[in-house]
Each structure stands twice: as structure tokens, then as C-alpha cells.
């Protein structure tokens, strides 16, 4: 006779994901999503005023929570983290519905969507690939918002080369931190 806990663990074991065991039960998943949203928003607020030596060069540690949610929970949880953390961080920084918020929103949701698609297309893809692709699409989406809202010609896209090089280290940092987080959480 299986206990309810064993049934939930067995149910969770059939789902794709990583970790010692997946979070079973609606309440547990909801609670973990809320923790990830709060952590991601806090990281985004804390990271925002840090000095940058190159334009767009920041670790993007809030994406750790999105990637963690994608691997440990689901694609919808990852998208929830991306949507909610940008809104909460914008509320704290007083930039809700400003162009800066729209850039952040477009970048975070595009990154979550791209990592989800990449994981579906290449289930064996490593964390670094998922994360670098997410960082790159994040930058790309932000550039698209700037192009749509501000630019009158296409010369803004000449920054793409630098943005790709910047996405590589930040993506690798996010991948390594996510890997450690997965390793250290049950």
C-alpha cells in the first residue's frame, strides 16, 4: 500500500526534469514558484545599480531563477518567474510601464521562451547552451524594443556583435550558478 507521499513522488518521477526529486503537489510547486519570483526580483533590483565596464555586461543572475524553474518545475513556471519578477522589480525601481520596463519584460520573457524551445528541440542540451541562448535572446529582444520605440534607422543592430560576446560570459556564469543551485537543493 503506497502512501500519498510515495504516490506524489512516483507521479513526479514521470515528469521531465532534474533534481533528486521533483516538487510534488500543487501547493509545493506554487510555493517554490513564489520563492523563485521573489528571489529573481530581489536579484534584479540589487544588480541594477552595479557599475558595468561594458554596455549590457551584467551577470543577469535573475535568469538563474528562470532557468531553475524551467528545469525543476515547468515551462509555465519559468515564464511566470520571468513575467512577475520584471513587474515586481519595476515596481521597486519606479519604472513600471516605462521603456526600461518594456525592455526588461521583453528580454526576460523572450529568454524564458527561447530556453524552453531549445530544451524541447534538444533535450540533451547542456546548461551552458540553454543559458547562453537565453542571454543572447534577452539582449536581442531588448534591442528589438529599442529599435521599435526609438530608432529611425537600423544602425542600432551594429551593436549585435558586442552583445553576442557579452552574452557568452554572462550566460556561462548563469549556467554555473544554476548548476550549483540544482546540486545544493533537494
Amino acid at each position, binding site marked *: 500500500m503506497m502512501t500519498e507521499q510515495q504516490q506524489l513522488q512516483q507521479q513526479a518521477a514521470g515528469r521531465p526534469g532534474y533534481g533528486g526529486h521533483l516538487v510534488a503537489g500543487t501547493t509545493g510547486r506554487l510555493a517554490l514558484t513564489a520563492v523563485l519570483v521573489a528571489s529573481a526580483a530581489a536579484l534584479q533590483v540589487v544588480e541594477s545599480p552595479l557599475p558595468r565596464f561594458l554596455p549590457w555586461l551584467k551577470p543577469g543572475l535573475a535568469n538563474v531563477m528562470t532557468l531553475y524553474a524551467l528545469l525543476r518545475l515547468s515551462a509555465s513556471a519559468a515564464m511566470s518567474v520571468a513575467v512577475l519578477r520584471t513587474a515586481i522589480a519595476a515596481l521597486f525601481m519606479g519604472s513600471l510601464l516605462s521603456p526600461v520596463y518594456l525592455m526588461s519584460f521583453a528580454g526576460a520573457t523572450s529568454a524564458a521562451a527561447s530556453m524552453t524551445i531549445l530544451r524541447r528541440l534538444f533535450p540533451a542540451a547542456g546548461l*551552458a547552451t540553454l543559458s547562453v541562448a537565453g542571454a543572447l535572446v534577452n539582449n536581442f529582444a531588448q534591442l528589438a524594443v529599442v529599435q521599435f520605440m526609438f530608432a529611425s534607422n537600423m544602425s542600432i543592430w551594429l551593436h549585435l556583435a558586442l552583445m553576442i560576446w557579452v552574452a557568452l560570459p554572462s550566460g556561462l556564469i548563469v549556467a554555473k550558478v544554476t548548476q550549483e543551485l540544482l546540486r545544493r537543493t533537494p
Partner: protein
Amino acid sequence: MNDNVPPLFAGKHDWQILLALLAVSLLAWAGHNYSSRGGFSGACRVRILTEPSQEMLFSGSQAQPVEVRGRTGPAVIEWGSDKKIRIRSSSCPCKTCVNMGWTDSSSLICVPNGIVVEPIVDDGQQVDAVTR
């Protein structure tokens, strides 16, 4: 400790995707260098997206930096000795526009401050400055 974690690099797909990204980056870099060639004289269009919006047209490099006022405060646009342009300072919080440095081809955009600096490579203007 949980040992059931995905690796950073799992297989050949990872390297193929990363190499494709590097190839795109090199192509973009080549495009940037190609567009940077040519006779840039320091001419640029500066748009300030406040209410009402303003537009300034400079037909060549200016000896003195120009200060403009955007949404969050003042910003200073400067021309270098090689006629390249940069946003020297801005009152925006992130300073991304300042960190973008000198340019003679790609636009400089300060999103929080609503300032757009667009270099004009084909210099057909014969005026010093126009504002509206």
C-alpha cells in the same frame, strides 16, 4: 548534495549552437567594420524624446560638447578629434549609453533619458544646427 544535475556541456549540439553564435558574431563584427568605413564628418541627428520632442541636426563635428536635457536630466554629447561621437555623460541610472563609447556608424540611444544620437555617414547637409 544532489548529483542528478545536468552538465554544462552535454554533447555536440552544444558546441554546434555556440559555434553558430560565434559565426553570427563575427559576421556582425564584419558588418560593423564595413559600415564604419567611409567619410564620416561628425554629422549626426540628435533626437530628444521628451514632450514635446526635439530634433537637432549637426552637419559636422563640434568643437565644444553639446549639453541637451532629456527625461531624467542633462546629457553631454561630445565629438572627438577623429570626429567620432559619444555620450560623455548622462543623468540616466544605468550609464549604458556612456559605456557604449565612441561611434561613427551605430546609433547611441539612452533609453531612460530618451536621447537618440544617430550618426549620418552621407553628409549632404550644409547647416550648422537645426532645432525644432
